[in-house]
């Protein structure tokens, strides 16, 4: 017995021009009640996947299942999937209430039911007084709420959201993230969410699928994604990340010894995604895990860095250094009591524990450098 999958992509491929694949052999399950985010840079194939799921783009190859039923030949209006669009797509010639009533009227619900459901949906997004207004009379955030309410008003099992917060300013975007998350928690509806904003993905999702080049690079919960990226792209794309290139010299169990380019010496790191001895690798290291002036013997890896630039950010001081020939090496110095006070030009000892540095695949040509 398989798990309760509301959506299943099976070997799905998509090509627009018959020459290149936008989505390459996608296999993905969405569990019932899950909030799954497809995250990736533009052109990574995430929106195409969403459009195939909604039915607006046919899959070139493979099959998509909704509630274990193949839906490749089901037109969009018969799929019963709610959808929130990038620019809301509220109908300008209808009032807010008429917009919300549209999916219900199409389903030929009795008038009284329609009114009750529209009212409830407006209350859910905290806009009970706005039924009579036109979308153009609402602010961006209000339009966004109406769009969410409209996608949910006919009680679909699955709602797709295509970068719905892209047009909002930062504060409103964060507020809406929590609101959408709460709605998801309360209704138990499954959500497939597309975004290129990693903080949005980390905030809202149960699981995140990181897309690049038409392939899912990693599918995991937000904390796993951040702390245990399986390849250089994910490490680069999620959060801030220091990359040090090097060559594998020795592999022992879960660990390996890497000789850094630029004369930094040999450091010990977790062996995650490397070839054999002698292969190239990228060491990935989060800036907040770097220790400045470590005590003697406290960390296995100690290097020397030269401070290039200090940026005061309130809660921490972002310090850019040259370490082992890499002058984009970032260290976050917390603005805590008694923190190290540095000046540009200072030379300082820094180090990290082996578990915080992950040896990943080396950059390919054309990959993130």
């Amino acid at each position: 017995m398989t798990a309760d999958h509301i959506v299943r992509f099976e070997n799905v491929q998509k090509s627009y021009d018959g020459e290149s694949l936008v989505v390459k052999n996608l296999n993905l399950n969405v569990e019932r009640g899950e909030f799954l985010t497809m995250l990736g840079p533009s052109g990574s194939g995430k929106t195409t996947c969403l459009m195939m799921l909604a039915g607006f783009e046919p899959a070139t190859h493979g099959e998509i299942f909704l509630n274990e039923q193949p839906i490749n030949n089901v037109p969009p209006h018969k799929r019963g999937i709610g959808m929130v669009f990038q620019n809301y797509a509220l109908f300008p010639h209808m009032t807010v209430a008429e917009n919300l009533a549209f999916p219900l009227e199409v389903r030929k619900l009795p008038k009284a039911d329609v009114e009750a459901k529209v009212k409830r949906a407006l209350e859910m997004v905290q806009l009970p007084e706005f039924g009579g207004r036109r979308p153009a009379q609402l602010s961006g955030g209000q339009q966004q709420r109406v769009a969410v309410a409209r996608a949910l008003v006919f009680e679909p099992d699955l709602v797709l959201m295509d970068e719905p917060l892209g047009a909002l300013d930062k504060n409103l975007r964060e507020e809406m993230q929590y609101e959408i998350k709460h709605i998801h928690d309360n209704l138990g509806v499954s959500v497939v969410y597309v975004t290129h904003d990693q903080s949005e993905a980390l905030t809202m999702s149960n699981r995140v699928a990181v897309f690049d080049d038409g392939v899912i690079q990693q599918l995991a919960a937000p904390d796993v994604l951040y702390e245990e990226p399986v390849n250089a792209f994910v490490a680069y794309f999620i959060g801030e990340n220091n990359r040090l290139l090097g060559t594998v010299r020795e592999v022992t169990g879960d660990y390996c010894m890497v000789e850094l380019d630029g004369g930094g010496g040999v450091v010990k790191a977790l062996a995650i995604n490397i070839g054999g001895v002698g292969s190239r690798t990228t060491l990935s290291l989060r800036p907040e895990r770097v220790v400045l002036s470590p005590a003697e013997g406290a960390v296995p890896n100690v290097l020397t860095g030269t401070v290039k630039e200090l940026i005061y950010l309130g809660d921490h001081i972002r310090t850019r250094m040259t370490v082992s020939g890499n002058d984009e090496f970032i260290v976050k110095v917390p603005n805590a009591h008694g923190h190290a006070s540095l000046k540009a030009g200072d030379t300082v000892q820094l180090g990290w524990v082996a578990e915080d540095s992950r040896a990943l695949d080396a950059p390919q040509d054309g990959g993130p450098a």
Partner: protein
Amino acid sequence: MADTTMTTADGIPLKVSLRKALMRQKMRALMLVAPLFFFLFITFVMPILDMLFRSVDNSIVPDILPRTVLALEEWDPDVVDVPPEAAFEAMVKDIQEGYEAKTIGRVGRRLNFENPGMSSLFRKSGRRTKKINEAPYKEALIAIDDRWGESQTWRVIKKLSPKYTASYFLQAVDMQETVDGEITWQPEEYQVYLNLFWRTLVMSGIITILTIILGYPVAYLLATLPLRTSNLLMILVLLPFWTSLLVRTTSWIALLQTQGILNDLFVLVGLVDDDDRLQMIHNQFGTIVAMTHILLPFMILPLYSVMKTIPPSYMRAARSMGANPALAFVRVYMPNTVSGVGAGSILVFILAIGYYITPALVGGRTGTFISNYIATYISGAAQNWGLAAALGIILLALVLVLYLLYDKIVGIDNMKLG
């Protein structure tokens, strides 16, 4: 309110200061529009004002026959049939003077509009009154032509004595003011204009509806096809603009005439008999076909510009909510194109209502528009600028009324031309 006017640092009221600062900007803007403004004023506003004036202007009679007009003031045709001797004397003097100045023919022509025959009467009298130089003038004039003795002749002249007249407008709506001052319908056989106005409106309406039916799908394709295909289609839509109007119209003649391509084809496939070829041109049908073709781009372009702004996500949203394609189109797409349909319709209708060349070429007897009659009265043998002006003004008023009606129903602000 106390003294709360804002002032600048050196105490000048802020408003004064602001006005000064904006003055230069305004002047520059004015200078930029000045050439166009003068051009429009001379070529557009002035002719319209002139036309307005001509439609009521009746200065010919009082200007050329001043003495007669004065003498006829006292005369009451209901009491005495023929005016007194003084009027005859005034008429003789006026005709003599007018004959010298070569203006007498114009009075004749003007009076002829009201009472056929007056033109010849004045031409005949002009030559012969030279010899009359003493009383009795009445007998002398009647000797030249009996009509001078008739009450009708003098009544017409008296009727046209005022400097302004409504007679052109009355004529333009198939009415007349009889010599007794009554306003009645023209005799049945002279009633043409109301019918013509009605025909012009109905045919323009049909043409507008046809352009909507034909243009809507094309505009939809233009707005939704990929850029490369839609560009090609756009060129096809615009192609007619690069061909002469005359060429397009005459090619319809070649296509539709009884010995034309279409009829030949019908005969060939046996659809119609050779002796019974269809009359498709030089009638209403021909005018409607040719004008629909010619005005089609004016419908497609505003429709296209509106459709282009409708995001494809509207239709997708409607479909994701469970509407089938047809329902989504009717409930979501079409309502958003109303402003384009409105703009296109009003453009096509107004262009159609005043169209001249095409109906003149392919309209025959039943397919001509009011503008063709206006043109006849401006340049044709039956020159009558007053009537042409009155017809033109009624046409202008009709268009304005329709425009206001449109504004009331749809709202001009909603119109999008591009």
